[in-house]
């Protein structure tokens, strides 16, 4: 082991430097945690969770919150859609339907995923308006 590593002054200086670094990380993580919590609280998520029922079908989902990673099977489930509804509305010919995500379908069909996403949202809104 190099001699300077055994020097108590060096050890103390090294530990102090690490201490400053960890204190900075501590302060930053505390700040980030507070910011995240405020965002969470301001979004009304805590209040919403308080009254949320865990039973399937009771929770209301916002169609605008659909994301590209969601599969059509999952979307059908959470919006209580008939299994073939989106397939017919969006004219999907992919054999993997409904086990395919919006992004994956867009890639296979060489389409823009945002377009398919918007079409899906519109179809869901139309379905909920008619039912």
């Amino acid at each position: 082991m190099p001699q300077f590593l055994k020097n108590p002054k060096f050890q103390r200086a090294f530990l102090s430097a690490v201490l400053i670094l960890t204190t900075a990380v501590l302060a930053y993580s505390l700040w980030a945690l507070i910011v995240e919590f405020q965002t969470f609280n301001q979004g009304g998520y805590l209040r919403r969770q308080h009254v949320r029922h865990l039973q399937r079908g009771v929770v209301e989902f916002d169609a605008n919150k659909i994301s590209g990673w969601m599969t059509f099977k999952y979307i059908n489930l959470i919006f209580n859609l008939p299994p073939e509804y989106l397939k017919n509305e969006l004219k999907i010919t992919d054999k993997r339907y409904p086990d395919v995500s919006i992004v994956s379908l867009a890639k296979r069909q060489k389409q823009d995923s945002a377009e398919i996403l918007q079409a899906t949202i519109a179809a869901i809104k139309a379905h909920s308006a008619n039912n």
Partner: protein
Amino acid sequence: MNNVLTYLLSEVLVYKYLAIFVITFLGAIALPLPSGSVLMAAIAFATQGYFNAYWVWVIGLAGNIAGDNAGYWLVRFYGIRILNKLRLGKFFPDSRLEAARASLDAHPIPAIFFTRFFTSIAPAVNVVSGISRLPYGRYLLFESLGELTEVSCFCILGYIFGSNWEYISKLSGWFLVLILAGWLTSYLVWKIVFKKKPNV
């Protein structure tokens, strides 16, 4: 949400329990995958009726434990051999490995149990445990208890917060950083202020 997580969530929705097992396994063995967030999301999907929550918990736990153990045994069998082939074996003499084993053996709760909550640290602890040949029974006990606690925490959070798991995932990430930084800072304060002769 980051691209890795969105990709993994699509795979979870398509391949279901197999994907949960593979992701938690790879996350535990070494790959930096957000397996905690995936578990939280899978439980949230279970509250919506897509999965069975009990099976998500069981498969998530099995994947994590299997990944940790695979890491431990791979390093235990091949670690030193590979290091010697890479001519790095001289940095790991028996005396150092013995010291590492003694340290892990003396402090299994902070070293093995609590590190399960930090996906970037746990694989390193598995490597040190394997290469220093920490007794397997002792490693398995604290590793399994740690994973049981970690997976249960993620599943409970996912179950309680349901479709808002994404926000909780962010919060819990910062919370873990906070705990780690707090623990390290306290330790250093104690070492510098209250201990006369520091040893690095």
